[in-house]
């Protein structure tokens, strides 16, 4: 087992500063997170801001201790053997953790030395990781002169130096333009294929989540559902029809009892998961035309998977 996480609970201490709205007991950031990664594949952790992604990452990065539950990386328990676990782990944080006044090579060299690497071995690893991420031409540039995409790649190179079994990336595409985002994903995929390293990427972009081999959806501090993205969409089956109506509640109540239907009303939209979308649309346009302002039908997407599993619309 590369990563094994069992029933993690983490609750941030209540805000003590006066003026802040102090709830008696703050909601836990993580409330029983359980999952495992057995094979080296590309796994996405999808969740909107505030779903607990960063807290989970900090626990996996051994920077926070959970109040309950346990986690291990490469069989090493994070609570008992944090130092050994860190060697099996590479972390790319959401905030840049490169020294901007140093060159890429100096940054890599520093990082390698933190892992006890030195001399010819370190120089060789710097070359290798730089090649993997197409950074050779930028090795002697100051980080402050690099664009966001290059910096991200330099960070990933930094985390690969010590050849971890498990690479953890916290929203690595945050703040990147679409071109750099696509480029970064291409590199992640290539790395995962070539190195056989298990990668866990957190994201709040559905299109990025769809690129992964496995998807974990984090909602209110728990894993709401997991599976291969395509399979999850497929499992929902049929179609999703969205009906905009000024009598959404009544329409919802009308459709709910039908066999094979899964109906939810959000504001003025009735969302129906049903076996045959076009048939529903044509029958409704005959029977309830005056209730309906707009109707749409589509095959299930990850947004629908998210809604189905959590009961709320995905809002990054």
């Amino acid at each position, binding site marked *: 087992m590369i990563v094994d996480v069992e029933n993690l609970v983490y609750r941030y201490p209540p805000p003590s500063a006066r003026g802040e709205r102090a709830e008696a007991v703050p909601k836990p950031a993580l409330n029983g997170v359980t999952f495992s990664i057995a094979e080296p594949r590309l796994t996405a952790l999808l969740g909107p801001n505030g779903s607990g992604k960063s807290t989970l990452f*900090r626990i996996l*990065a*051994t*920077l*926070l*201790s959970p109040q309950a539950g346990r986690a291990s990386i490469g069989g090493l328990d994070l609570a008992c053997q944090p*130092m*050994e676990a*860190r*060697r099996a*782990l590479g*972390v790319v*944080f959401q*905030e*840049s*953790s*490169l*020294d*901007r*006044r*140093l060159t890429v090579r*100096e940054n890599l*060299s*520093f*990082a390698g*030395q*933190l*892992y*006890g*690497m*030195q001399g010819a071995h370190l120089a060789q690893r710097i070359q290798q990781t730089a090649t993997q991420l197409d950074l050779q031409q930028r090795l002697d540039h100051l980080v402050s002169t690099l664009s966001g995409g290059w910096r991200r790649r330099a960070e990933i190179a*930094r985390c690969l130096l010590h050849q971890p079994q498990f690479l953890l990336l916290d929203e690595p595409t945050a703040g990147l333009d679409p071109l750099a985002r696509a480029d970064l994903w291409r590199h992640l995929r290539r790395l995962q294929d070539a190195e056989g390293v298990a990668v866990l990427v957190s994201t709040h972009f559905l299109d990025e989540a769809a690129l992964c081999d496995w998807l974990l959806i984090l909602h209110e501090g728990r894993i709401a559902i997991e599976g291969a993205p395509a399979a999850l969409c497929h499992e929902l089956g049929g179609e999703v029809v969205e009906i905009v109506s000024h009598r959404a509640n009544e329409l919802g109540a009308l459709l709910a009892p039908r066999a094979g239907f899964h109906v939810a009303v959000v504001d003025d939209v009735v969302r129906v998961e049903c076996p045959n979308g076009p048939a529903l649309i044509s029958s409704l346009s005959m029977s309830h035309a005056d209730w309906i302002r707009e109707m749409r039908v589509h095959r299930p997407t990850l947004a629908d998977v998210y809604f189905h599993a959590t009961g709320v619309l995905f809002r990054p």
Partner: protein
Amino acid sequence: MNAFWVPTSAVFQRDLLRFWRERSRVAGFALTPVVFWVLVGSGYSNFERFLPGALVLTVMFSAIFSAMSLIEDRKEGFLLSMLASPAPRITIAVGKIASGSLIAVAQAMLFLLLATVGGTLYPDASLAVLFAVCLLIAAAFTAAGLVIAWLVASSQGFHAVINLIFMPLWMLSGAIFTLTEAQPWLRYLMLANPVTYAQEAMARGLGLPVSASHPVGAITTWVVLTVTAIATLVASVRVLARRSERNLT
């Protein structure tokens, strides 16, 4: 042993490299002693009275402010990568104390070099003693600076705490008025102040006459300085080893 020395020397080298890359820091480092000698040295006759205090101040503040690199590292996110690495926290502390001390001591030595070249250094001055004194002060105050940098939230907070704690320590060290000139209650405060001993040791190292008005013995001076340095080193290592949520944001 490599697990300790390799990361420690990495932290040490990086801090020096950052220092060297920042022109304003290098300029401040090199020009402060020059300005001091040109202005004060040539324009004031009762100079030797303030010389030890000026040296102590130079070393003290150079050392303390080098610890601010910890706050910058935190702000820039760099600290996270160090905290998530298998390098023990003590290597961060030791590496930073070594680099901060080196810069502070080098500045003091530059100060003394200018004095030697200018012919202002006293015949009884001992460079070895001065070096040792500067090193102890530098190590103690870099370590103290690290403790404060670890605990405060911002560089503004750091400055506030430094002004609150370290300016009075320097002012009550005999740099401005001597022990015998102070009221008895203040004299006790001064005797409890480690910087007083730094000031004494510096005066002795400079070969200034240590009159009967200086009731602190040479051995006491060394013991206090050494104990202070060790205590702050231990404190900094222990404080940095604590998990602190502030350092995660």
